[in-house]
């Protein structure tokens, strides 16, 4: 059974600082996803990582995947207030009945 863990659960950081959210998963996974959720809203897809060493960047966010360590990271560079949200990682597998398993989320608050 695939399990996904994130840390930290809560993160409060000042504008302009850098930080990293970590996502570990328990068994072999084929794809790793990062989502953003604003309060009362649905999930917005940020990144899909498909292979070992994959790195994707969008603005101040960069995601990477290390399949050997079963670890993905979401790095925030020079944080701005607009990045305040809850971030989820999730993983699935190609073979068998594909279904997305979520981490518990990281609630990020950017302080001016």
């Amino acid at each position: 059974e695939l399990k996904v863990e994130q840390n930290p659960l809560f993160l409060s950081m000042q504008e302009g600082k850098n930080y990293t959210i970590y996502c570990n998963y328990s068994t072999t996974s084929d794809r790793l996803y990062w989502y953003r959720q604003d309060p009362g809203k649905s999930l917005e897809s940020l990144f899909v990582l498909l292979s070992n060493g994959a790195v994707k960047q969008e603005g101040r966010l960069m995601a990477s995947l290390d399949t050997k360590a079963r670890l993905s990271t979401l790095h925030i560079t020079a944080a701005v207030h607009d990045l305040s949200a809850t971030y989820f990682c999730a993983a699935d597998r190609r073979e068998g009945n594909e279904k997305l398993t979520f981490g518990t989320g990281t609630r990020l608050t950017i302080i001016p």
Partner: protein
Amino acid sequence: NAGVTQTPKFRILKIGQSMTLQCAQDMNHNYMYWYRQDPGMGLKLIYYSVGAGITDKGEVPNGYNVSRSTTEDFPLRLELAAPSQTSVYFCASSKLGVGNYGYTFGSGTRLTVV
């Protein structure tokens, strides 16, 4: 394209009542899913379907039922609502297969059982 459409957006139920949460997608996706999200928590899978006529349990299926008679629709039935079913419910779909990945989520249904 509308994507994944969920109705209703909000609902208040009394304990013991029943209701059906509707989910429809117009993307010809083969996979469909129901998740619930409790306050401050991640999403947990209730049921999923790999195609019309095929459904399977997820992590938290108790108290729910599903059916998938068409590719487009995947309704979630709550029988005998309980306060523990107060949550936000998200429907999602995906066209998984060789070279395909990614999930589309609906806007959610916020359910309160009192």
